């Protein structure tokens, strides 16, 4: 019986909820993401005291206040940098990073790509609502071209980022997408992300019902999902549609295209491979050109690569094995010294 002593005591969603009143706008997609995380935590065999949520600034960044864990609400864009130091210092902790599309891709873009390439051990949830919410409705780095907002009355001119392409380009080892209308899919995606050793990047299509209502409705509304969302499942043919009658195949010019399974035959439907290292995930990330194209969701890429804090700790251990533990006196006397009598 004693061998179970290290397992955390069973918890419920309530144990993971802080006593703070949740203050997002009524109807915001953030509520369902919070619920998915709070419901998932009791299933993860982790302790609340060993869990830390780190965030920057924005609506999404208020998230840590609502979790009964350790939490640090930082400054705009810098959560991945702060979390990098925390994860390096404390490999024993379970670190989550929460932010929106502005926080992660605009002001914090540099920190995001470097944390991903280093493969720092944290789970990063990026709430993408394609708008600035907390500053009340300016266009974001994921807003579509021509977006009319308070700061772009004649339409925005900037080509948006494709967050999945960006994360893959930044050498992320785990890249996934989910959406706020499907709790089950969120929980399973978050679980995979959490279990990944290294930096896990999850884009969540999230509805801002005040400043950008319905941005993802063509994809995520219940009636549209079967035809518009392409579930990615490792090792299985990429098929979708009410009867799984559609699929993804590689055409003669080497590009991905959506086909009728009946037209090309089941054997010609592309089989998803999360570990594919020659760009399949990237091609899939570029299959949909706009919210009216069928869009893949699920895990685009999941590969193993040495995790950064592990690698750091290994260097420290190797140095100690080679030189012995640090001796301050020896350090001070390590240069040329002379004695004055």
């Amino acid at each position, binding site marked *: 019986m004693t061998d179970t002593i290290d397992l955390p005591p069973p918890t419920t969603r309530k144990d993971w909820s802080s006593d703070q009143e949740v203050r997002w706008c009524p109807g915001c997609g953030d509520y369902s993401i919070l619920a998915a995380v709070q419901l998932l935590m009791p299933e993860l065999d982790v302790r609340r005291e060993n869990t830390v949520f780190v965030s920057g*600034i924005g609506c999404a960044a208020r998230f840590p206040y609502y979790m009964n864990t*350790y939490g640090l609400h930082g400054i705009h864009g810098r959560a991945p940098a702060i979390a990098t130091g925390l994860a390096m210092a404390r490999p024993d902790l379970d670190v989550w990073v929460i932010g929106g599309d502005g926080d992660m891709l605009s002001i914090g873009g540099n920190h995001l790509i470097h944390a991903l390439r280093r493969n720092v051990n944290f789970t990063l949830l990026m709430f993408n609502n394609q708008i600035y919410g907390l500053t009340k409705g300016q266009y974001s780095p994921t807003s579509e071209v021509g977006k009319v907002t308070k700061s772009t009355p004649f339409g925005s001119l900037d080509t948006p980022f494709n967050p999945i392409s960006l994360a893959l380009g930044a050498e992320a080892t785990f890249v996934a997408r989910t959406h706020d209308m499907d709790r089950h899919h969120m929980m399973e995606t978050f679980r995979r992300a959490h279990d990944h050793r290294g930096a896990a990047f999850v884009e969540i299509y999230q509805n801002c019902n005040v400043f950008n209502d319905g941005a993802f409705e063509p994809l995520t509304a219940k009636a549209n999902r079967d035809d518009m969302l392409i579930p990615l499942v490792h090792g299985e043919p990429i098929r979708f549609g009410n009867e799984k009658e559609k699929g993804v195949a590689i055409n003669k010019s080497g590009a991905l295209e959506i086909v009728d399974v009946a037209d090309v035959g089941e054997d010609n439907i592309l089989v998803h491979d999360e570990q594919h290292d020659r760009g399949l995930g990237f091609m899939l990330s570029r299959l949909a050109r706009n919210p009216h194209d069928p869009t893949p969701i699920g895990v685009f890429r999941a590969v193993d690569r040495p995790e950064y804090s592990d690698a750091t700790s290994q260097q420290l251990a190797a140095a100690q094995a080679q030189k012995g533990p640090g001796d301050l006196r020896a350090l001070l006397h390590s240069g040329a010294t002379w004695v004055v009598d």
Partner: protein
Amino acid sequence: MSDTAERTAPVEIDRVIIRFAGDSGDGMQLTGDRFTSASALLGNDLVTLPEYPAEIRAPAGTVAGVSAFQVHISDHDITTPGDAPNVLVAMNPAALMSELAKLEPGGTVIVNIDTFDDRSLTKAGFHDDPLQDGTLKGYTVYEVPMTSVTKKACEPLGVKPRDAERSKNFFALGLISWMYTRPEKPTIEWINTKFASKPLVRDANLAAFRAGHAFGETAELFDHPYSVRPAPQKPGIYTNISGNTAMAWGLVAASQQSGLPLFLGSYPITPASDILHELSKHKNFGVRTLQAEDEIAGVGSALGASYGGQLGCTTTSGPGLALKSETIGLAISLELPLLIIDIQRGGPSTGLPTKTEQSDLLMAMYGHHGESPLPVIAAYSPANCFDVAIEAARIALKYRTPVLVLSDGYLANGAEPWLLPDVSTLPQLDYQLTTEHNHVDADGNPEFWPYLRDPETLARAVALPGTPDLMHRIGGIEKEDGSGNISYDPENHGRMVALRAAKVAGIANDIPDVEVRGDVDDAEILVVGWGSTWGAISGAVDRVRTSGRRVAQVHLMHLNPFPKNLGEVLRRYPKVLVPEMNLGQLAKLLRADFLVDARTVSKVKGVPFTAGELEQAISDLLES
């Protein structure tokens, strides 16, 4: 035989200032550094001033590409690299062009005559040959064929002439080592170790060094060598230390003394990068170094490590400090320990990256948004950087606050002999953590309040992630006094602003009073300094006092808060003079805080004050 013996008997002198100057590729920093090491081992007191261009390799042979290293060695206690060199070693015409004006009148010039051809002279900006046209009238000039003798010495080794030429700095080092009777052994040992993996380079350097030494002894050019006796120093074990190395070692010591692993998040920037380089070597001390993607990530990752319970530190120079400002504000609000080390350089903007300045003081004090006080301390000498690092960590850990440490390019790269401290006498640094509930809610349930404060220090309760039952959230939004929950209440914000200010101000009770040096009781003038001007001010004060005037000196290490007795000391003397390598930033603070008529003497040229300049400034104010 007796002729030779007479000719080579060293003449004793009490001090000498030598300036090695050459092209950036000529290895002058190395030459100066080796000469310094040999002098340190001999027991001289010494101060160095390395000066090099910002460009890695400016066009060869141009004035822009001149790199120089000045070293002052002495048989008595000295505090500056010297006002004007006695000896200039010029490896090419550009070095002569750029450095001659710094030499003392009638000083000694040693030139590498092999480089004085028409092309090089033109490149350096000479219309006529300065060796012929009277430019050097009044100086003692030695024309030494350094390149050709070096090539000849290397010939038997099979070294190609072009490669042999690279060893000419060791020829210069050998010659000057002979001139000032430096022992050969440490340099030979150093060459053997340093170039062990490149036998041909090693042998060429050894040959050049020996040839330079022999040249001094045999060429009947020099009358005799000189010697400088060891300076009387406190007994103990000494090493020669630069400010950046001392800072790095001080951080390691602070980590050892606190039991907290050191985390350095840093982005490379001149002249701070050497601290990152040094600390990255010491992983066996548990030191984690992260070369971050930018300055902001440097400080952000350090703050994250601090939050996790390590000793978080970031190093930078002025432009980088500007970028870190927002995160420092967060650290002030989170009330977490954090060390921010600014190695100041010439500004604004890129300014003079390799030159020294003290112009970040007001940014250090006030360069953060909101009411955001934080402790500021400054090192006054290269070795003092070690103590300052430990003191910064002590304050940061005890008061849960970021601490800003100021050094500068002069301290960072300058070196001095350091009486090594007995590590058993270093202070223990205590980081008190909360592991139990510290408050009871209205229903009688125990809870943890992260902003409950120690009544004496006003330090808040810190519980590290991983502590069972004390889960809590902290952030940059204003917090409710005590509970730490988000609060937009106006009264609460006012209270928190006042508490944060009182906490930092209260550190004045925990630092030593300033000590007045010199004519404590009856000085006509008080000279107040901070940072790297200490050496020049001390030298100047001593000179003015020798002339019969009464002068007192105060040098500040703690700049925020100021020591408790500072106001009383300032008001005690009729005149107050504040020398600074800025336009009067400390003077502004002293005037604002203490309503005293502090006068400024400024030098913002990228080079330190000389004692002579300050002697003049003190005398001028005394006469006014």
